[in-house]
């Protein structure tokens, strides 16, 4: 017995609902279109239903702590399809548990809980890296622009941080890999944006550079100041490229001013 779903979070939650509704326990939850396992006789296709998903989620809210719920949402942002099955099993276990048993969310001896927690940690690690390594350039109209391409979909996790920190300056952070970004006007809330024609944007998606005609006049000097500072602060007697690489992996360098 195998379930297939459409790859959305609502679809996964609906699959949990149907599992209990139909009194079944499928061996695996697959995305529609995945190759079926050998000797698979029964396939049930989950039809995503927002109402069912909402009921499952509110059930989880009763049974799990806020941190555990957060880890589940964060894990989902990893966009790793191998997480679907452990996550689905984890949520099923939550509902199968006795009410008085200690909560499963911190039982790291359970492989599904462990997998979800570990992947969520990876995503949290990367959102921290975005907070560290995002570099803005200032455009002539005063907007600060940064381009990123993270491994996981972490933009939703870092937007509040930047809105809180740079609340008096307009900025935009654009995810070149997922083709969307957030724009903050200088007041209010950051808004989700996409470009109809990505080739017409005034910046280069490969290295994040603003085109020269829109770059503000003193930005080049400031970038040079920063590069100079970056070189000057290093103590040559202690050179340690291994540590540098482990803390600042090379895949983030292409958008970083000091490494360009």
């Amino acid at each position, binding site marked *: 017995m195998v379930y297939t779903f459409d790859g959305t979070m609502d679809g996964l939650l609906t699959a949990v609902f149907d599992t209990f509704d139909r009194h079944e326990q499928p061996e695996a939850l697959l995305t529609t279109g995945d190759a079926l396992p050998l000797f698979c006789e029964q396939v049930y296709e989950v039809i995503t239903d927002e109402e069912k998903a909402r009921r499952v989620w509110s059930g989880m809210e009763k049974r799990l702590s806020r941190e555990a719920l957060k880890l589940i949402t964060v894990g989902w942002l990893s966009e790793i399809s191998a997480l679907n099955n452990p996550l689905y099993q984890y949520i099923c276990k939550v509902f199968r548990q006795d009410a008085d048993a200690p909560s499963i969310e911190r039982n790291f001896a359970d492989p599904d809980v462990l997998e979800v927690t570990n992947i969520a940690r990876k995503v949290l690690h990367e959102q921290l890296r975005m907070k560290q390594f995002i570099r803005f350039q200032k455009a002539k109209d005063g907007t600060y622009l940064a381009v990123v391409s993270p491994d996981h979909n972490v933009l939703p996790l870092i937007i509040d941080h930047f809105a809180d920190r740079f609340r008096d300056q307009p900025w935009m952070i654009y995810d070149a890999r997922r083709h969307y970004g957030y724009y903050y006007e200088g007041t209010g809330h950051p808004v989700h944006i996409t470009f109809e024609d990505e080739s017409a944007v005034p910046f280069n998606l490969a290295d994040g550079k603003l085109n020269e005609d829109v770059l503000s006049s003193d930005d080049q000097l400031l970038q040079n100041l920063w590069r100079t500072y970056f070189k000057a602060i290093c103590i040559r007697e202690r050179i340690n*490229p*291994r540590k540098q690489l482990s803390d600042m992996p090379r895949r983030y360098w292409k958008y970083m001013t000091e490494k360009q």
Partner: protein
Amino acid sequence: MLTDSTLERLRILAESAKYDVSCSSSGTVRRGKQGMVGNTVGGLGICHSFADDGRCISLLKVMLTNYCMYDCAYCVNRRSNDIKRATLSVSELVSITMEFYRRNYIEGLFLSSGVVRNPDYTMERLVAIVRDLRTVHRFNGYIHLKSIPGASQELLNEAGLYADRMSVNIEIPREESLKLLAPEKDHQSVFQPMKLIQQGVLENKEDRRRYRHAPRFVPAGQSTQMIVGATKDSDRDILTMSAALYNQPTIRRVYYSGYISVNTYDTRLPVLKQPPLVRENRLYQADWLLRFYHFKVEEIVDDLHPNLELEMDPKLAWALRHPEAFPIDINTADYEWLLRVPGLGTKSAWLIINARRACRLTSEHLRKMGVVLKKAKYFITCHELTSSTLQPLRGINELGPDLLRPLLVSPHQRKLAEQEKQLSLNFEN
């Protein structure tokens, strides 16, 4: 206003400031405020970049000026050194900080200065910069300010209202050694400003209990630094000093800085081909044991062992000296005892404590959770009877510390330790 000459001066002043190792932006959480730029995140802070030496760049670490009236032997900026000198103007420094911050290059500013004319004159100029940043430019990010020994209490009190963290460096743990290298200084001149800052913080705590909106005073506390390997002071001298400092309510961090031969001509100092990095690392590990692992300083260093072992970390060294404390049962031991197992850190201990509520743990569980058993396996017992590669029946008590020791030190570690011992031998002669 910022020009190419700024570029050159920033380079000189960053190079003068880089031997100060403190860089953290931790210790205080402050959300953004209407009409201001910036916030501080607390936790471990945010490192915005990593220099080629692998050290984190969190704050813009820079000196206001590297002219200095003192002649301390260990300092690159000493009066008698023939290096390029420079000064940044208040407006230059302020606009570099703001522009860097707005581009997400830095968490804030770490400002220090050489002492010119007299301590009060220097401190006044430092305070002017942080006042400008906070009140005129509405900067709400992190500020770490060096306090100048000998500056007046009024100036320190004003500085504390703008700075998140303040620091004075002890540099040399024993006063005799300090007197030898810096005859113009003594420990009193370092402890006096520390005391004044502490007094300010404690009074402020009292005020805030009464008036919730009283402005905060140095909310991220104080830090300090000691140089390692410039004098003959032992690790015991250094760690005893650190432990005494951590007993004070406002000291959050002690940094250790492996001595780099900056002034090779001075015969009072050793000539080292490379800084004592292994020793520095061991000191940081010992520092962690003091702060997070419930160790006492006498357990780490004592009369018989005044220096830390270079080949292995101080926790492992302690464990090998105390076989009677082991084995520790993973399924029943307290958190404090789990932390004493070599190879288990706070994260592993936390995972174990949580997971064992649901079931009895075996070494297979531990391995899956990501607990590293390479060292730990000799010091623990789990819920299993058979011997396997993961869980040998032969632990520390069966093997004995002398047989176990060579199994736990890698050839690479031994080589590094050997190299560094050679360095210190040269120093003794």
